C-alpha cells in the first residue's frame, strides 16, 4: 500500500494565511485522488478552522495535512493553536432567523466544519486547542 502523504506548515501572521493551509490540502488531496468538489468542501472547512485559530489563538498556528491513499482516499487535517482555549459545547448553534434580527452575524465557522467534514474532534485547554478533521472522498 502507498505511504501516507504528509505536509506540516506553520501559518505566518499575515493576511490570508489560511490559504496556505488550503494550498496544502489541494496538493495532498490531489495526490491521493480526491475530486475537485470534495476538495473544495474540505478547503472551506480548513479555512474556518484556521481563521478561528488565527483569531483566537493569538500566535503560532500549526497545520498538518495527511492524505491516506486508501479506497476511498481519506484526508486528515489537524489545526493547533496555543491560545486560551474554549469549551466547544458552550457555543450556540447559529440560527439565520435569529441573526437577521440581531447584531451578531458571525458564528458559522464550526457549524460549517461539522457539516462539511465526516468527523470533527476538538480538544481544547488553556495553551492548546487542537482541531482534528477527517473527510473521505465521497463522504458526507
Amino acid at each position, binding site marked *: 500500500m502507498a505511504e501516507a502523504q504528509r505536509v506540516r506548515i506553520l501559518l505566518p501572521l499575515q493576511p490570508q494565511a489560511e490559504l496556505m493551509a488550503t494550498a496544502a490540502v489541494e496538493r495532498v488531496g490531489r495526490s491521493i485522488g480526491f475530486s475537485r468538489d470534495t476538495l473544495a468542501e474540505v478547503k472551506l472547512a480548513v*479555512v474556518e478552522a484556521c481563521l478561528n485559530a488565527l483569531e483566537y489563538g493569538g500566535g503560532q498556528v500549526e497545520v498538518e495535512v495527511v492524505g491516506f491513499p486508501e479506497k476511498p482516499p481519506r484526508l486528515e487535517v489537524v489545526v493547533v493553536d496555543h491560545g486560551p482555549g474554549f469549551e466547544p459545547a458552550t457555543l450556540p448553534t447559529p440560527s439565520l432567523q435569529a441573526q437577521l434580527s440581531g447584531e451578531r452575524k458571525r458564528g458559522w465557522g464550526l457549524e460549517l466544519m461539522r457539516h462539511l467534514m465526516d468527523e470533527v474532534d476538538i480538544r481544547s485547554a488553556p495553551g492548546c486547542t487542537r482541531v482534528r478533521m477527517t473527510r473521505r472522498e465521497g463522504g458526507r
Partner: protein
Amino acid sequence: METFELEVALLRGPLAVIEVGGYINNEAGEAIVATARRLLEEGHRQLLFDLKATRIINSIGISLLLEVLEMVMEAKGTLAFCSPSPSIAKTFQIMGLAQYARIFESRAAALDALSTPS
C-alpha cells in the same frame, strides 16, 4: 494572495447584477456591503450576485452577505445569487439561506425568473 473582483455588470430597472470573483473574506465582504448599499440607495431593489468566478467564501464573508440580506429585506427588495460552485451552494444550504434569498444555477435562469413578476 487570492484577489477579489467585484463589478456591477448590469443595471436594468430595479435589477442590478453584481459579478463577484475570487475569495470572499472580510475585505471583499465589506466591498460587497458598500456596493449593495449604494445600489439600494439608487433604487435597485433586486440584487443578483453572480458567483460564477467566486472560488471560496469564509464565514466572515458570509456574515457580511447576511448584512446585505438584512439591508435588502428592509428595503423590501429581493436578494438573489446565481452560479455558485457546489461547495458554496452547500454552504448556503447548511445555513438555510434559500428561505430568505433566491438561488439559481445560472445567470440566465436568474434573469428569466427575476424579470417575471412573482
